[in-house]
């Protein structure tokens, strides 16, 4: 079920009403669990089987680690194999099969490689990571297995964040599920505000930017100026699409008395790659840091080669998580290289410029690097990108130049409300009338600008 659908509006209203009518926490959690499975299985009911499998396996593995300490490592391995196995099978089988065929073909062997063409279950990349964090944290002794299966199952399947995050940690979210909740007006107001913001970002900004972005990235030989404009528009699109989804998720959770982790913190204001990854898809980047990067040695590694290797492996896998295609891997490797380079130059970690001019310069440079990364991310394939970048003409004049100006103008138009929102949150965080006026204007914009054919959230495909 998509967030931007009438069905979801009805669903959320019914869940909200039923939830707060139920007084007991246990009943509320059971109802939410059932609702979450209805939400997830709305289009493809068999997806629920995968979700349930991951849930049951990790619940048992969690208890297995505590009850049979000698088998802890095996239990963790079982959890990893099950979750990563499911993820690998549904998401990467065809990718690897196709690449094996290509390699064999280059070696002169014809291979009739079998591909499955299976449907990718929505959200599998997110909930498998979420359940893995539970078992890994138990193994590390950072949390304990839960007796109440319903509470734990709800932690895995909680519908606001099930299909595209934020990826919640057990030690942060399970205590909320295990606590009593009381209806509060502030939760209703904050939740509604987040939902309005989310819909505004998605339906007004992201979907309308997508119209131009999709057209530009479908051209056989776009002029370089148009490619630049399209990449800039994509930067706005992907941010507002994902941030919008996250706000809707957080808003829906807030209506139910839960606080999900923030996933974005003005990422385009980052001054370095490390800063960027502390601001962009925070729940994912911290997951990668805590469970992969640190496990591989992290920043404790002394030799430059070891540091580079670990960063490339971590970020390459992060790129692969986003999609079964080489340009996602290259995007990840690109960010790994950026992180390494900045670190070697002394601008890694928590480095921040001292002067305002330095800050502006660092921010501008990092935004340029981010744009280049988005170009790698959005490109249909690497062949297209190489062809596009080797175009002789910048195309500043003529039709391409004119369209470039149009795209830039619309990008500025759609970015302006984001700047207003950022200013409101930064300088007037407690001035409710101003925020209320923004929400009113956002509702007007939603009615005017929403497209008749809605685009899916970008991160739904991951």
């Amino acid at each position, binding site marked *: 079920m998509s967030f931007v659908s009438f069905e979801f509006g009805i669903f959320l209203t019914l869940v909200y009403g039923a939830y707060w009518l139920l007084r007991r926490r246990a009943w509320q959690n059971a109802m939410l669990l059932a609702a979450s499975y209805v939400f997830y299985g709305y289009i493809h009911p068999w997806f629920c089987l995968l979700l349930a499998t991951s849930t049951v396996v990790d619940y048992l593995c969690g208890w297995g680690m505590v009850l049979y300490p000698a088998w802890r490592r095996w239990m963790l391995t079982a959890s990893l194999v099950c979750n990563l196995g499911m993820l690998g099978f549904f998401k990467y089988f065809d990718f690897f099969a196709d690449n094996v065929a290509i390699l064999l073909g280059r070696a002169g062997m014809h291979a009739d490689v079998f591909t499955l063409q299976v449907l990718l279950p929505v959200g599998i990349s997110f909930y498998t990571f979420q359940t893995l964090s539970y078992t890994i944290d138990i193994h590390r002794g950072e949390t304990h297995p839960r007796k109440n299966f319903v509470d734990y199952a709800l932690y895995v399947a909680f519908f606001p964040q099930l299909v595209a995050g934020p990826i919640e940690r057990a030690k942060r979210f399970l205590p909320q599920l295990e606590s009593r909740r009381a209806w509060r007006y502030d939760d209703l107001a904050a939740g509604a505000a987040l939902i309005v913001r989310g819909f505004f970002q998605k339906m007004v900004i992201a979907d309308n930017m997508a119209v131009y972005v999709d057209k530009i*990235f479908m051209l056989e030989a776009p002029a370089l100026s148009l490619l630049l404009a399209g990449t800039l528009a994509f930067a706005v699109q992907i941010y507002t699409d994902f941030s919008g989804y996250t706000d809707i998720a957080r808003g829906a959770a807030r209506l139910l008395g839960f606080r999900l982790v923030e996933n974005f913190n003005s990422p385009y204001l980052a001054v370095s790659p490390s800063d960027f990854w502390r601001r962009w898809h925070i729940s994912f980047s911290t997951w990668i840091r805590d469970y992969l990067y640190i496990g591989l040695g992290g920043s404790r590694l002394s030799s430059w080669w070891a540091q580079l290797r670990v960063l490339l492996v971590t970020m390459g896998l992060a790129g692969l998580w986003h999609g079964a295609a080489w340009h996602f891997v290259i995007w990840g490797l690109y960010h790994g290289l950026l992180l390494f380079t900045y670190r070697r130059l002394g601008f890694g970690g928590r480095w921040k410029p001292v002067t305002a001019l330095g800050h502006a310069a660092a921010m501008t440079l990092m935004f340029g690097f981010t744009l280049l990364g988005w170009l790698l991310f959005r490109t249909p394939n690497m062949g297209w990108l190489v062809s596009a970048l080797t175009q002789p003409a910048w195309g500043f004049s003529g039709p391409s130049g004119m369209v470039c100006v149009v795209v830039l103008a619309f990008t500025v138009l759609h970015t302006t409300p984001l700047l207003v929102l950022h200013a409101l949150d930064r300088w007037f965080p407690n001035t409710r009338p101003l925020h209320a006026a923004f929400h009113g204007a956002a509702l007007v914009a939603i009615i005017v600008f929403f497209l008749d054919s809605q685009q899916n959230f970008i991160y739904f495909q991951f």
Partner: protein
Amino acid sequence: MLNRALTIAIPVLVLLVAHLVLGAPRRAGVERDGRVNPDLRERVEAEQPELIMLGSSHLNCGFDPERYTALTGVKTLNLATPGANTAWHYVVLKNCILPASHHPRWVGIWFIDTDLTQPDLGTRGWFKQFIDRYATRDEPRLDRLAYFQEANPLSRAMLHYSSLYQRRGEVRDKIESEVKRAAFLGRVPQAHIDEYTRRVFAEDRLVDDLASLRQLLAEEERTHAHFADSVDESFLPHLLALAEQGGMRLFFVRLQVRRDLRETAASDGLEQYMAALRAWLEVRGVPMLDTTGRAPLGMEDYGQGNHLTPEGMAKLTEWLATEGGLPDLLRERADDSLP
């Protein structure tokens, strides 16, 4: 308490002001003058064709009626207008061909892929004028299928009671034109900007990459490809009924498009849709001639988008008149009517 009240009151006030600025909601109906232009009816009466082809600019660029007449001896007439789809075919059949003193024996409707079950296609914006030209003031079926088939109760309610929702197209167009004007400091007319945009994004400049196009197709399929779900709320059954009412034999011609010339172009969803459409038509005795994969057209025969070049049109017309089997199809259907 005051803050809470303001948190609710201010957004409501903003919405109210936005509605008031645009005025009261219009009557829940489509605005049109209701005068049916007699030009098409007069053409049909004057030329008395045996075969009328209905379609859009793809028809005008794809089928030469005079050449077909010369090859087959069947007097043929094209009735086409830019962007025409089933809503236009419906009003033309109902208000121009049916009332005419002469009825053709056959009416052929040209379409692309899933057009036949997209009743709102070619009915809005610039294309609306072509529908209005042949629609009476009172067209409940046209309005319901083409303009008021909103997906959910909220949209339907807003369509009736929200002036902002009713006029959002105009508001969007106004904002868009202001942005374009401001981008060029008012020095470039919007018509030039729009023309350059069309040129830059013309379909023959799109990447010849199947994956990207399949993605687009998949998007379209999610909305339109489920034939069984959409046929009852389309003009298709009504086109058949109108043709039968006038004693005319209806048939459909599916146009081959550029995408079909690429390897493994059709997706499973589209193939299923076409199979369902064929079966539905067959049960009702309505033939469909599918040029996809059969017409002797290459990429060089396509000009702008899916429109054929003059050479492509000649090729297709000749093929339809001979190997394509159109005369046999019409003869066969004519025989159906013999005792």
